[in-house]
């Protein structure tokens, strides 16, 4: 069973307008490798010169920040919904 990956509008210029796609990636590094292959421009956008995910991007698995689930070590479960979202500050202060 694949996972579902969802993208914000800011990223869809690199995916020919595609807002979501299915993936068989086992974990985050696998997903990033797939993005590099399928949408190379998006891969470049979301990673810095050091090849790491930019710190302004948050990855959510279902409703949870992936960092709470073990980050790169987390193994995607069947039917997981993965969201890539630029972090925007908010709140009171």
């Amino acid at each position, binding site marked *: 069973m694949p996972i579902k990956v969802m993208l914000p509008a800011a990223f869809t210029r690199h995916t020919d307008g595609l807002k979501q796609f299915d993936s068989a990636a086992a974990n985050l590094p696998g997903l990033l490798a797939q993005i590099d292959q399928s949408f190379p421009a998006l891969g470049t956008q979301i990673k810095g010169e050091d090849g790491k995910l930019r710190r302004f991007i948050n990855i959510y698995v279902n*409703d949870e*920040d992936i960092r709470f689930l073990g980050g790169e070590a987390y193994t995607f479960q069947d039917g997981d919904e993965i969201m890539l979202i*630029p972090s925007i500050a908010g709140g009171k202060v």
Partner: protein
Amino acid sequence: MQYSCSRYELKCNECGKRFGNQPLSACPDCLAPLEIAYDLEAVRGIFTRENIAAGPANIWRYAALLPIPEGFQPDLPVGFTPLVRAKNLGKRIGASNLYIKNDAVCFPTLSFKDRVVSVALANAQKFGFTTVGCSSTGNLANSVAAQAARLGIKACILVPADLEPAKILNTLVYGARLVRIDGNYDHVNRLCTIIADEYNWGFVNVNLRPYYAEGSKTVGYEIAEQLGWRLPDNVVVPMAGGSLIRKIRKAFNELIYLGLVEDKSVRFFGAQATGCSPISVAVKDGADDIVPQRPNTIARSLAIGNPADGPAAAKMIRSTGGWAEDVSDVEVIAGIQELAETEGIFTETAGGVTTAVTARLYADGRISPDQTTVVCITGNGLKTTDALAGRYQQQRAVRPRLADFDTYLRELDGTTEPNSEPELATAGVSNAH
């Protein structure tokens, strides 16, 4: 949905690209948050002490350095809240030169959020939005609802479901649509970023965020002006998203650059609740990145577990030689009571955090007693009275008789024997019967 302006425009602080003026908060290329960049030379000679003094007694006296579109006619007297000397609190915590910047009485909704919302909505109108919204921990919701009502713009506001009842009531009363989200603030904020993609709405702290955040600078301008156009040695600021503390510094730097105040290095101190302290932890650990937390504190208005401005705030604090501290919920309550009892200022839980952290900073010797220190109180205690539930018992009612009153006072004071005449005598009542 954009406008051009020679005085200011959006700029990416990471890659330096400029984007004119449009509802956009992240750089399309490197995804970093955008900020407003000004042509400071263009306002030299305009943004002067004299011109400011001749302006209205509200934030619009600083309009030349706010991203306010040409032709905007502000009509709400937002800000210019009191800066009060805090001698009593100072005495209690060992500070001889302490000031409170009291945004608990900011107009119109009793928090510093009125400043940012007024600037954001000026731009929302310019961009042509007919609906505005926000993700909020309460104060922002109140302010967006009130100011949108005044401007005749529709408001849709998203809040965590467990928000204090007073903050929900204070939003609904203005006729705003309020949606309670089953999650914490970080969930709400994430949803708003997705909604902003799909709906043509102006979210003050999402797609209007760069404009909104600039409103916070007015706290810094006011502190400097109210100190007689000089900068303090230290500022203590509550931190949720990490924006306010940076914008106060931006304001100070602009004042220095334009010659309104003498150059001086001000140290910045950040305050958080231990139950949600990602920025404080980063400062203490010397870390470049923020490790997100799941908030668990009564200081809900500061409960942002994944603050996007956090890394920049932590870096800035360390660069000024400042520090960040966090305090327990018990200390938060004590802080609220201490500020009320010493200075007559009733602040919300966030202000309890700031007061308690300030006391800690003095106790730990991080701030010298004689230095000029300004503590930023950003919200009003009337909105979070739940936090004090059970702290004050309602006492029995007393019959409207002097003797009953006298007995009652002795009960309260724990004296069982009736006082004989002295108290009556001091009141000038004859003892001769």
